[in-house]
């Protein structure tokens, strides 16, 4: 099996260093980039409905058009970002372009005025930047970290990312209270925060210069050619298959609110609980993945999600049940989101790493969208509870091959 490692650490001494595996400063810096970018992005996401309804007076029918139009486009851009990062061998430059695009889009909002289509275009630019930067950023994290500490490194990054996402709405609502209808101030603040992220990326992370003569030329076919190989093919296939039997988060929250007898007033707080668990568990579960094996943790995470669905289907009442479901839901994210990347990255040839990560992420993202649509159709045509039963069963069935035939037999290259 072809395995590439980020650094020469296949020695027995490396096993001894496992315990003291440190997360490099570069990863913390990339985490801070995501932290500021996510504050900025979530500010706008939380603010946009308010801005359209009260700043521009656009009816909320138009809002629907702005939401979810971009899934396909962002998937394509994710693939493009991965390919460009590999082709140029300069993931930092590509990531910088992505972060820069998103930052610039924040200034587009107040500039384009009231046309909903123009607002839609600004959102599209933001999403394009988001799609473009994901894979190169994950490749940078991989390049900076020893393979034995990748789980922890991705855990640190995702924890900082989530912290930013949690802070964004807080910042924006505090700001709206302070500036009243001076809505431009919200976008300017969001832009400045995003630019802080861009500055940190520009100043603290470096692309490793590889002489063009030394590095292989990368064509589009090479990236897809990865799918012909273990372990990516199997891992990507599993991630996609499991994504197809993942219900959208919103359904989980509605399920928690309805089937645990909590008042409707608690519903807005439920996503915060999931995010908070994700935030707290990302690093510990990343470390666990480093020790026990990433794939095991990834599969276990989906088993936790299946358990959450089963609890929702069982209609066990009360706040304890709600807490259990939300805990499982948050742990699912902590055990899968960064862990899958950490598991795959060392097994990908270095010059195709961003492409490989992008293909996996895209497959998973599109599959989860499909899963959400499927769940929605099932819940509409049948019943919310029955849908959770069906998805719990499907998820469990999907986990069997992932357990029995893991994508590779070895965790560490030798």
């Amino acid at each position, binding site marked *: 099996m072809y395995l590439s490692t980020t650094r020469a650490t296949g020695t027995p001494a490396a096993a001894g260093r496992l315990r003291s595996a440190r997360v490099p400063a570069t990863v913390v810096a990339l985490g801070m980039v995501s932290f500021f970018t996510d504050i900025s992005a979530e500010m706008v996401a939380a603010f946009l409905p308010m801005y359209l309804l009260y700043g521009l*007076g656009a009816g909320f029918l138009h809002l*629907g058009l702005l939401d979810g139009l971009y899934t396909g486009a962002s998937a394509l851009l994710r693939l493009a970002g991965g390919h460009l990062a590999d082709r140029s061998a300069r993931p930092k430059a590509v990531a910088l372009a992505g972060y820069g695009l998103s930052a610039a889009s924040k200034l587009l909002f107040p500039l384009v005025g009231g046309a909903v289509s123009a607002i839609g275009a600004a959102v599209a630019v933001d999403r394009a930047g988001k799609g473009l930067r994901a894979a190169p950023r994950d490749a940078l994290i991989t390049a900076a970290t020893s393979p034995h500490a990748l789980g922890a490194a991705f855990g640190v990054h995702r924890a900082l990312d989530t912290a930013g996402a949690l802070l964004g709405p807080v910042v924006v609502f505090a700001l709206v209270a302070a500036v*009243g209808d001076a809505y431009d101030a919200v976008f300017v603040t969001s832009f400045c925060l995003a630019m802080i992220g861009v500055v940190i990326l520009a100043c603290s992370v470096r692309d490793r210069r590889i002489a063009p003569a030394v590095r292989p030329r990368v064509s589009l076919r090479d990236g897809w050619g990865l799918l012909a190989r273990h372990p990516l093919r199997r891992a990507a296939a599993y991630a996609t298959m499991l994504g197809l039997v993942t219900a959208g988060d919103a359904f989980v929250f509605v399920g928690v609110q309805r089937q645990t007898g909590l008042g409707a007033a608690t519903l807005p707080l439920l996503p915060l609980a999931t995010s908070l668990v994700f935030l707290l568990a990302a690093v510990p579960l990343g470390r666990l993945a480093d020790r026990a094996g990433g794939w095991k943790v990834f599969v276990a995470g989906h088993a936790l999600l299946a358990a959450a669905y089963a609890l929702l289907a069982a209609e066990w009442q009360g706040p304890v049940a709600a807490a259990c479901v939300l805990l499982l839901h948050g742990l699912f994210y902590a055990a899968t989101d960064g862990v899958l990347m950490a598991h795959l990255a060392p097994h990908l040839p270095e010059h195709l790493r961003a492409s490989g990560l992008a293909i996996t992420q895209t497959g998973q993202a599109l599959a989860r969208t499909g899963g959400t649509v499927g769940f929605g159709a099932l819940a509409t045509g049948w019943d919310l509870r029955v849908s959770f039963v069906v998805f719990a069963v499907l998820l469990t069935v999907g986990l069997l091959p992932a357990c029995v035939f893991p994508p590779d037999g070895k965790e560490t290259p030798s």
Partner: protein
Amino acid sequence: MSARRRIVAGVCSIVALVCAGGGYVAWAMAGNEQPLTRAAAEAGPGTLVFLDRGRTLAQVPVTDAGAEPVRRARTCLRAYTSGGTTVCLRTVAVPAGFEAAFLRGDKEIAEPVRVDGTPSRARVSPSGRLAAWTVFRSGDSYDPGGFATTAGIYDTRSGTLHGSLEDFAVVVDGEPYRREDRNFWGVTFAADDRTFYATMGSGGRIWLLRGDLATRTLTAVAGGVECPSLSPDGTRIAYKKWAGTRWRLHVMDLRTGRETPLAERAEVDDQAAWVDGATVAYARPDGEGRISLFAVPADGTGAPRLLRRDASSPAVIQ
């Protein structure tokens, strides 16, 4: 550049960004100062209570709506006042979200209730006892990209939260209606503090429902009616109706089911408020980049007139 110089350049850039952003926000806050006048007394009949510049609770005689208003130190995204009670839908920073606050004069009469989404409609029953809201949610709609709304009702006297309308039993054409993709919006109350009307959307169709708080049921009474507003005498509803390309204001006689389009030809996306038995007020873009209040006769005659510039959330004390 050496590593040290890069760090120095980075730190300087960040400091500059913090100063620029902070300075802009400070400048915006300075421009946000508004002269506040306190309400001298309870708003009496014939008072227009509204949101000045779209956010400050204010009142003015409806017959002289352009006058300098009495402003109160409250900001809301959406508000409504009736029977001495104001419901004010506003933002909360920690944890980030929105809430419904209940005021009598300047005093909060109950704990605010968190609402799940961006406020879009607000109502209070004629007695001032019940308050309702509609919030717009993205992200839990059954088709990604669609929108979802939900409506809730709160009893300010007993502290009962009548849940969101999703929890009520719905009857359409005499049959229980069970589709999960139900959305509710635009509650309006009758005088008995028990009966109310609201809109339900589901499977691409829209109904006017009559609700009963005692039996927790909703019964479909008509189609195509959105954001109903019950007249003071309880016989008619003003509402917006989709006219192919835009929403037009209409009035329906509840006894005969007869629908009358009103003289306002521009699109209205608002829940109207009755000024008296013959006129309705509503907010719409005024063509000059602002949302303003207009009034139009409720019998389809006449023409719309500007009530007040740069204002929203109208309510007229009966």
